[in-house]
């Protein structure tokens, strides 16, 4: 799919969205309140205990903001197409996406692009900037580039996680409960993973690499660890995304086999 075609899709989606402007704005207010509550809970906790695993409030705000921001970017692309797959399959509408002369994956991504994450981006960027101003981070050229790449890589990890949920529905039809479970698991990285038992830390690093979204970048940028390996963090996102897209395509082949 060409970039021009992709943007054409986005324009159409934007137009439909703007037909319901009041709904859209009300929804944004609701979402901002929802995330503000998540921040507030951690703030209340730190108001009482000062540190979690040695992390102070601005550091925690940084950790959570990177999670929310990368999720917003990744989910804009993959949330709606992947979570709609179950219904598309049940109603038989998925076939429509398979018979067009474009790659079904990019076609789905483009036609389900979701502009609904503006609220997520707003609140997380505001908190991110606030936290950085209250943290003593040395921002050189290298740190800035590293940070940009970790955000990009984190967004790819978040997008990839959702692609796996979509793949689940290709293999097993029903994915709604799996999705619900994933959203509960995802919250583990709102806290430093050193709070969890060793086994869980290993899982979050090597099996479900959620720790690469915000924890490892934060370790490096906030000077919490001095490990050269942390420089490799931005590589994980693209690799994970490629892997999930590969799994998804295998699922599509399986689906075609079962459908005929």
């Amino acid at each position: 799919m060409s970039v021009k075609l992709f943007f054409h899709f986005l324009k159409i989606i934007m137009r439909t969205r703007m037909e319901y402007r009041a709904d859209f704005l009300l929804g944004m207010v609701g979402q901002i309140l929802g995330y503000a509550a998540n921040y507030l809970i951690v703030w209340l906790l730190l108001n009482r205990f000062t540190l979690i695993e040695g992390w102070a409030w601005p550091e925690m705000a940084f950790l959570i903001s990177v999670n929310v921001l990368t999720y917003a970017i990744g989910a804009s692309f993959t949330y709606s197409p992947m979570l709609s797959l179950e219904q598309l399959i049940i109603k038989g509408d998925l076939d429509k996406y398979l018979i067009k002369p474009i790659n079904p994956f990019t076609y789905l991504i483009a036609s389900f692009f979701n502009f609904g994450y503006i609220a997520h981006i707003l609140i997380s960027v505001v908190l991110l900037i606030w936290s950085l101003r209250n943290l003593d981070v040395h921002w050189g050229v290298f740190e800035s580039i590293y940070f940009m790449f970790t955000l990009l890589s984190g967004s790819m990890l978040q997008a990839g996680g959702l692609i796996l949920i979509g793949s689940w529905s290709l293999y097993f039809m029903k994915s709604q409960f799996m999705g619900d479970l994933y959203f509960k698991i995802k919250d583990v990285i709102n806290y430093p993973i050193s709070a969890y038992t060793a086994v869980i830390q290993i899982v979050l690093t090597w099996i479900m690499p959620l720790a690469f979204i915000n924890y490892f970048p934060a370790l490096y940028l906030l000077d919490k660890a001095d490990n050269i390996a942390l420089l490799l963090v931005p590589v994980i996102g693209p690799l994970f995304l490629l892997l999930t897209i590969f799994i998804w395509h295998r699922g599509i082949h399986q689906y075609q086999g079962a459908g005929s």
Partner: protein
Amino acid sequence: MTMRAYLAYCGKSFSKHISYRSEVWLRIIGNIVIMFIQVSIWKSLAASSPSHMLNISEMVTYSVITTSVMNLLMTRVYQSIDSKLQSGDICSDLQKPISYPWYLFFEQLGTVGFQLLFNVVPSILIALLLFGIQLPEASNLLPFLISLFLAMIISFLIGYLVALIAFWFLTTFALNWTLGALMTVFSGVFVPIWFFNPFWAELANMLPFQYLGYIPSAIYLGKIEQPYLILLQGCGWAATLLLVVNLLWWKAIKRLIVQGG
């Protein structure tokens, strides 16, 4: 006759969930994940704080109970109205010779019954093995059970209130997020109100959301000196909400007719 009809709706919603029983284990894992996150954070905080600030076995029990109580709430009643409002199916529901609010209540009751048997009980058993739970003092048991019942009633009324507000908004998206925000903070599902700073604690005590998680757990742990007084206040909340809901229902029905005409 009508009671039998309501019980039939209750049973129907129970058996609807039974057909999804293969996914039950995913819900149980979900509960354990939530408890695990909370327990880990409390353990970490306990390790770095003086012992008088935080009693870890108390906090573990607190997390297990609030997470379980969340599964027994009926706030989601508005979701069943939401789709019917948009498709217009609500009209056929309103024509049935039964009271619509009671129908919704029994439908939710069936869901709660299912959740209790297939989700809450197994989750608590697993939590007992994984984390360990304190047992309540005998004198707190009765007020705890009453508080659970009250949590269901108040959550139903709040969910129903949201549903009625949706008659004006015609969508529950924004309301859903707002309710989620209020529940996250003020029901004390993760952080109990006794850890809040004075301003937020006072705010939380002025709202009914504390009855949806904090109050049952706090009573269970014997943290509330006069549980029956608190429960009485909860009944006051239920009565107030009932009044508001009835008023709004009246207006909403009129509005619905106007819209249809």
